[in-house]
Structure formats: C-alpha cells, structure tokens
C-alpha cells in the first residue's frame, strides 16, 4: 500500500512533547502505530525550530527519537518559484518555506496548529489539518 506523506510542523512536535492529553500529544504517541500508513517528514527548518526551543539537555534525546526513523528529516533546496507561489497566496514569510517544502515533497497533509496555515485550506496541493482534525481523519478511514 502506498504510504501517504505528512509534514509535521514544529508546533505539533513541541506541543506534543510538552503536554499529555492534547491532540498533539496523542498524535506524537500514535506516530509509531501510523508509520505503516504514513511517512512523517520534517524539513531542516522545522528541525531547527524544535532544536532552538528545547533545552540543551533534551536535544540528544530528541535526536534519539529521530533515530527511530518514524519522523525523517528531508532535505529541501530553496525553490524561488515555489516561494513566489506561496508568497502570492498570502503566506507569511516563515510559513512560505514550510508550505514550499510540503509542496516540493508532494506531501498529502501538513499537520499544524498554526492558524495562519489553517486559514489557507484552499491550498490545492496538500491538506492542512491540525492534530485533532488529522486524528479524526485517520479514525474515519
């Protein structure tokens, strides 16, 4: 079965790692169960966002988590055309790189709690869902 590709935004990772009963927390725990159906990816920018916001003594543990290969970091080379596309769609500066990454990766879903992303649901290339919506969607199928 072809796996769906999902980009996980840094806010889902941080919220999932700092709480226990939220949708983001459930999502992070469930990634291991979902790995046969989904390929979970992050860009180097998302990785950097997480690393810059967790304490030094946790960075090694986060890297160990990535060694499970349940979430993988994929390279993203700057793509001026894609940046322009998302700029024209009205994305904010930092979000342009993440949306372009999801586009370039042919991702099916971008999972984010970012309201700026969530209002751009008309993006045809990929779905933008928050953790709660994503969890509801996987229960549906």
């Amino acid at each position, binding site marked *: 079965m072809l796996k769906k590709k999902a980009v996980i935004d840094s806010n889902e990772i941080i919220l999932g790692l*700092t709480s226990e009963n939220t949708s983001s927390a459930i999502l*992070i725990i469930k990634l291991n169960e979902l790995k046969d159906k989904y390929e979970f990816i992050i860009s180097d*920018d998302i990785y950097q966002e997480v690393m810059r*916001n967790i304490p030094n003594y946790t960075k090694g543990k986060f890297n160990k988590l990535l060694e499970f290969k*349940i979430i993988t970091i994929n390279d993203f080379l*700057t793509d001026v055309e894609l940046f322009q596309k998302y700029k024209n769609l009205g994305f904010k500066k*930092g979000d342009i790189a993440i949306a372009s990454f999801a586009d370039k990766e042919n991702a099916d879903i971008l999972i984010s*709690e970012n309201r700026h992303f969530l209002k751009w649901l008309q993006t045809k290339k990929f779905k933008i869902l928050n953790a709660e919506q994503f969890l509801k969607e996987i229960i549906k199928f």
Partner: protein
Amino acid sequence: MEFKKVNITLPAQLFEKSKQLVDKGLYSSFSDLVRSSIRKELKEEHQLLNKEDEWQRKIKEIRTDLQKTELAKMSKEQIIKRLRKTRDRIWEEKYA
C-alpha cells in the same frame, strides 16, 4: 518440558505447502514446523511491542525534561507565538 496436544484446522492448500517443507527436510515433522512458526511469530511480536514501548518511553523522557522548562508553563498560543518568532528568524537567516 510439558507438552500439550492440539488439533488445528488449516486450509488444504496451506497444509500441502507446509508438508512440502517437511518433505524437503526443512523441518523434522509437521509439529516441528508449527512449533518453529509460532516461536518466530512470538519473537517478532515481542520485538514489535518492544519498539512501541521504546518510542513511548523516549517521548515520556522528553516530556519529563520539558516539564522543568518554561515551555511547560506556557499556553498553546504562547508556544505557537514563540515558534513563529523562531520561524521568522530562520527565514531571515536563510532565505531573506
């Protein structure tokens, strides 16, 4: 070692294919094939369960670490706002 005798029902085709493995000498008997298969299945299941446990254990370790930080005291909106600042900073550093 104590043994239990069990009767099993198999699709005829599966039984025939299994029998071929015994006939080729890969297993000493049909019972030996069943025992080996169950052991293999249990080993795989054990490994799978361990991997799941390990993933959850690592997440719990990180959560325990982060409970001691200011992140744990921040609301969802505050965390999102903080990450937005980091995102914009990375944008300025890499792409602007």
